[in-house]
């Protein structure tokens, strides 16, 4: 199990304990915990609606891949700590991180 903290759009924080042996990515895990993440493209780095910002503990996260960087360039509010949660596997690297949910919802 991996422990990390999630900050929702209203600023509320919650520590999650997620399984690291199910091959889930962070987007799928957030959805499983019933956070509102649109994830239109189902994790293909094509929609940008699973955008999160790493508020703390990002040292061990792997670098963004090409597809992820391409998409982040298209999100107006992305910053240097932005990630696509669908591109982050849930494993030890996420231990102790804090992620802020930022992706847009179609009802906006």
């Amino acid at each position, binding site marked *: 199990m991996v422990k990390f903290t999630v900050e929702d759009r209203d600023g509320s924080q919650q520590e999650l304990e997620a399984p690291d042996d199910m091959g889930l990515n962070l987007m799928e895990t957030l959805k499983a915990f019933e956070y509102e993440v649109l994830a239109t493209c189902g994790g293909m780095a094509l*929609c940008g609606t699973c955008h999160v910002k790493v508020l703390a503990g990002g040292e061990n996260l792997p670098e963004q891949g090409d597809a992820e*960087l391409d998409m982040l*360039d*298209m*999100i*107006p*509010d992305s910053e240097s700590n932005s990630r696509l949660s669908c591109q982050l596997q849930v494993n030890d690297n996420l231990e102790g991180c804090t992620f802020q949910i930022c992706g*847009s919802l*179609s009802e906006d």
Partner: protein
Amino acid sequence: MITTDICIVGAGPVGLFAIFEAGLLKMRCHLIDVLPQVGGQLSEIYPHKPIYDIPGYPSVKAQELVDNLMAQAEPFKPTFTLGERVDEIQKQEDGTFIVKTSDATEVHCKAICIAGGLGCFEPRKPVVERLEDFEGGKGVTYMVKDPEAFRDKKVVLAGGGDSALDWTIFLANVAKEVTLVHRGDSFRGAPASADKVAKLAEEGKINLLLKSNVTKINGNGVLKEVTIVGPEKEEIAIEADNLIPLFGLSPKLGPIANWGLNIDKAAIEVDRDSYSTNIPGIFAIGDINTYTGKLKLILCGFHEAALMAHGAFKYAYPQQHLSFKYTTVNGVHGF
């Protein structure tokens, strides 16, 4: 005014297949889409990706499926209004409808089929206060329709994708001053375009602000100034006549929410008989609808299109008897 049997809102795969199903019942279709091209999510988000769950195709590229759907619909001579958003639907006393678009196009039809998918694809907007105040000819625009409108103007573009690069290069020869603002420190668009932008910046023909973001805009009625925060968090104010944020498109439910339809979590509630909505004569198929067990798959949308066409026929021609025949019995006879 355009007259037709069915007006289809949305030209995604499901809307396109609905033309064929309606055509088999001798009903004509007019389609409207806010995007400049047909194909919905397939053409806009993933044209080059293979799809594996279309019956009869072990694998088909998204754009190829769209092209084939267009070819399949062709005998029924559908007509299109592209690049316009459907804003309003008015039911007439005789049970027909008038559909109105953002560019004042009007369609008179017997039935409406909403195949609006995730909603309208609209420009992603930066989070900048008072942005809306400067839209609509007052300085902020999200696409370059007519480059001549920027001749001798001071233009700030924002974004790091291909369209930001392409328009920066193009407008460098048209506008008086061009500034490109990009949050990253390098460009990931086509390498040739990225090189060209770097060269234009070296030659002083454009201003290039990397690791920077547009944070404020100002002006009195029309845009005058854009404030940009640079890599060291310093604020830079730039005089500007135009700001063009180019961050691609994202879907928003948009006007569909205001048409008096029963909506649950951004989707239209339908009956499974013919995918009819709470307003008789208006049907909803594909990703935009919801019912128990709904699956947002192209395949399911196709099935819904077939049942919708039969429902729409019964609504439009209540006196006529519809005898069901397989397509293989009659073949496909266009209009």
